[in-house]
């Protein structure tokens, strides 16, 4: 439940600071400190690759990889691969989100549904779903449908479990209050239980999103064709090490952007939540 502790004086200070010039400087400094480790790693990569201890085939310099990404962007190959991977990951993620929340809600409300799915979820969650890849390829082929199916299959589990846990934790008094005011069963679920469980459901989605990207890339690697994963495998087969490393950098950026995007959506959706004030 969201039985929030009484803090009548929210962190007003942090919000005020951001608007002053020194505040902006402080934020820039914070970003610099936080990204320092990544910058350091990239510099080390560049120096090591140019040191002569390794061949450019084994480790192309970071700058060469950047040039490669830039060329791919100009020719348009990058956007095709990126778009396809994003489409597969996000389509799978959205299906997993809707189906996962629906299944979680049904499981927490209806005894027969819980009886049937509870053991399946318990067994299926820790299982490496990627083992089903050959079967999915046999059944659904090697195109978008099978890749998206793999993503859904993997990403749905954290959504289901988070939804069940969130709905279970909804304060009884919140539901009683709503019933007191005349809310029916359907209203209780849509207007009270699901909004109250939203913080936990969003946490489940935040776990599911990187899984969706990982599985999309792996499925592409296994099935070939366009997409970031497929392009990396293709590059590897042709001994195109710059292409392989470009894929790594691209996936890292995409993953980071997706996570940040979802965190932003969370902050917007939970503006009412206590955590919105603690974050600043």
């Amino acid at each position, binding site marked *: 439940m969201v039985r929030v502790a009484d803090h009548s004086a929210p962190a007003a200070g942090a919000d005020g600071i951001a608007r002053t010039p020194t505040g902006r400087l402080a934020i820039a400094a914070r970003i610099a400190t936080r990204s320092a480790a990544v910058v350091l790693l990239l510099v080390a990569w560049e120096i090591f690759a140019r040191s002569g201890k390794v061949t450019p085939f084994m480790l192309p310099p970071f700058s060469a990889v950047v040039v490669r990404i830039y060329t791919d962007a100009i020719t348009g190959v990058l956007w095709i691969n990126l778009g396809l991977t994003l489409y597969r990951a996000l389509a799978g993620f959205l299906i997993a989100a809707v189906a996962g929340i629906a299944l979680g809600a049904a499981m927490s409300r209806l005894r027969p549904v819980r009886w049937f799915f509870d053991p399946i979820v318990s067994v299926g969650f820790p299982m490496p779903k990627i083992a089903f890849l050959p079967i999915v390829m046999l059944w659904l082929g090697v195109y978008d449908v099978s890749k998206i199916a793999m993503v859904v299959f993997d990403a749905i589990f954290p959504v289901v479990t988070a939804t069940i846990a969130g709905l279970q934790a909804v304060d009884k008094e919140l539901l009683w209050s709503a019933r007191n005011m005349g809310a029916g069963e359907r209203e209780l679920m849509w207007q009270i239980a699901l909004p109250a469980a939203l913080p936990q459901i969003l946490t489940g989605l935040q776990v599911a999103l990187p899984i969706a990207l990982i599985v999309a890339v792996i499925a592409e690697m296994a099935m070939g064709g366009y997409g970031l994963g497929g392009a990396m495998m293709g590059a590897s087969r042709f001994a195109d090490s710059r292409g392989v490393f470009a894929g790594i950098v691209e996936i890292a950026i995409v993953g980071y952007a997706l996570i940040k995007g979802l965190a932003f959506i969370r902050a917007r959706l939970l*503006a009412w939540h206590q955590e919105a004030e603690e974050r600043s």
Partner: protein
Amino acid sequence: MDDQAQIVIDGVTHTYRPAHGRAVLALSDVSLEVRAREFLALLGPSGCGKSTLLYLVGGFLPTEVGRILVEGRPVSAPGPDRGIVFQHFALFPWKTVRANVLYGLERQPLSRPEREQRAQAFIDLVGLGGFEESYPSQLSGGMRQRTALARTLAFDPSILLMDEPFGALDAQTRALMQTELLGIWRRTPKTVIFVTHDVQEAVYLADRVAVMSTRPGRIKTIVDTRFGDRNPSILRSKQFVEKVDEIWDLVRVEAIKAQEDTAP
């Protein structure tokens, strides 16, 4: 049946069955009548079943043994004729103060402007004007309980069920809220069942105090606590202090018993 009694509790026994662990007899053969527009306090040590009794009247728990009648009809489910206020406010944290108060009005046969107007009237009544667009997490404990009170009062229940409503507040806020509740109660007369373990609060607020014994809960005695004019100055009067002492003696025995019960 006494035609003045709005709520009749007749031979109610309730067993609490937790999902794990053994069943506990929470209430044993409780009978009580509450008159219309009466302010009745249910007083007893924690774990005596006073909240359970309130939930039964509210229809949140099923009455298994005995019967509970509200205006002659047996209670079977929660209804807007019996508004409940909880100790921890039970506000919808994703709704603003205004939206919280509006929630109960949405299911009433009112036009939108009427609902808005009514919500505003009750927000003003509890002194929260200016905080309509605040979220519960931005309010102090006292303000949250005012919001909960406004939300419940707005759908105009004839009976107010209050479950230790000021138990989570600090002493000063609590004293303020008590006096304000009395003021609101005078302006919008309702039948109130007020659960508390605070003797002074019970004597100050209520017309009658029903003292409950510890597990299994029973009504031990009912003490008349009606004074002339209830205002904070009464708290220092001899009459008031004696009444509190008298009831304290009744409760003390039960509190000690309750402690022995829970001791390992």
